């Protein structure tokens, strides 16, 4: 396959990755957010696969496989199993900021990401020039989404998307360092396990997972 086609395919994955991030900002239902996350994971693996093929890198291939297993299979399965009631309820997530405003902020943020990442792009065309701004934009948008989401589960999904964004950028700048790839991919699973347990405890103890309303910890003092 000619290298330009590989660049093109990677760029396609990057564009779709960015679209899923925007759609995540616009989505209100938790189940929809989760399927967006799964698709993002698949796009991340696709980008890693393309680059693995282009650079003949075994590490990236391994990373792609692990990502698919971890992010498209294991994590959604774990979340659905342990948090099933929250997914099935079709209630809409409350948003602190309305969707159109959030989208405008996301646009501004993407602009910032592209501006920052431009000097690092190197000679065109290259994988870094495509992946780094998209990954950075995903990172920044996920941080924003994290701060406006009020429900525990969407907050956690924003965190997972942050992870995806970081690794999307990381795939392009990764050097042959097998340790970090494996560790980081597994880390997502461990994080999910712990957060799922915490979530269970919260919903059992408090009866609601609307963490934005849990504002008992303030300066008024506590018992």
């Amino acid at each position, binding site marked *: 396959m000619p290298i330009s086609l590989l660049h*093109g395919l990677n760029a396609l994955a990057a564009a779709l990755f960015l*679209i899923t991030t925007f759609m995540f900002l*616009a989505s209100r239902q938790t189940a929809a957010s989760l399927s967006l996350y799964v698709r993002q994971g698949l796009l991340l693996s696709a980008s890693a696969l393309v680059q693995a093929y282009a650079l003949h890198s075994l590490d990236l291939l391994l990373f792609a496989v692990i990502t698919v297993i971890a992010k498209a299979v294991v994590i959604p399965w774990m979340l659905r199993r342990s948090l099933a009631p929250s997914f099935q309820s079709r209630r809409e997530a409350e948003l602190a900021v309305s969707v159109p405003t959030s989208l405008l902020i996301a646009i501004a943020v*993407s602009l910032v990401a*592209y501006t920052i990442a431009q000097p690092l792009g190197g000679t065109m065309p290259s994988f870094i020039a495509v992946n780094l*701004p998209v990954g950075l934009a995903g990172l920044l948008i996920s941080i924003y989404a994290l701060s406006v989401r009020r429900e525990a589960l969407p907050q956690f999904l924003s965190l997972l998307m942050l992870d995806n964004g970081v690794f999307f950028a990381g795939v392009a700048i990764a050097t042959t360092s097998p340790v970090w790839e494996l560790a980081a991919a597994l880390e997502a699973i461990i994080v999910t396990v712990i957060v799922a347990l915490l979530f269970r405890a919260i919903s059992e103890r408090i009866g609601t997972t609307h963490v934005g309303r849990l504002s008992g910890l303030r300066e008024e003092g506590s018992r």
Partner: protein
Amino acid sequence: MVTSLLVNLLQVLTVLLLAPLYKGVLSWLEETIQGKVAASPLQPYYDLGKLMRKGRVISSEASWIFHFAPYISFVVPIAVTLLIPALTSFPLFFAFAGDMVGAGFILGLGGFFTALAAVDAANPYGPMGASRTRMVSLLVEPIFIIVFFTVSFVANSTIPYVVQQYWVRSAAAFFAPSHVLLAAAFVMIILAENGRLPVDNPGGHVELAMIDESKNLEYSGPSLALVKWAGHMKLMVLSLVFLNVLVTPWGLAATASPLALASAVVLVALKLLIFAVLIAVIETSLAKLRLFRISEFLGATFATAVVAMVAAIFHM
């Protein structure tokens, strides 16, 4: 010069004649996917013919706008067809009479008159639908502008024929992020502007829920035929812009020879068929959005278009 004028008129004729078939094929595809027994793809022709033979009923409250709006809305897509590369890749007689922004204005003119006409007839559902249509068009405007800006930034021109030469130069550029995002945004524009799902249900009969169909409510007979035909042509024109300028500018006639033109017609029809399949799949997999969520949907489209613009500016 005479040949280019003739070919230009041939383009108009093609669009005029093929538009109902395009709509018919689209409906047929959707209904087949949904498992229904579909009406023949030629059904729109029969409908237009039937309507032409019927008589008109016009409210006594209606003004001249109501009388003339069908003609205006019929002429608008034809005027736009004169400007865009529908069959040929070289500029034709009217090619430089207006650019993409001009085409957008012409389409907007048509929408303006139809909206006024809907208010004119004193039917309660008319103004309601007209205001909703205007809202959707209002939200779609910025996206149009961003798309035009991006393609003209890359091509250094706003004339569709010139843009077509420069926008997609190779197969690899097909996959560039700016291209993909722009194409996605434009597909959503097409869905929104033509009143298709997820913005509006074209097959719906409940007047309370209509957005785009409400413009047809008061018309009857030949006026209704013209308005319907205009709707079919608008869908085809926007699809042609999408296919021939933005996404797949291949298969168009490079010379004015009859053979080239005939093969161009066939290839364009093939591209439209594939695009119809795409639209049918999208429509059958989405549900109609609630009204307040349309702004969110179009907001996401706007975000996509802006990122496409940013990516194009940064040459990625």
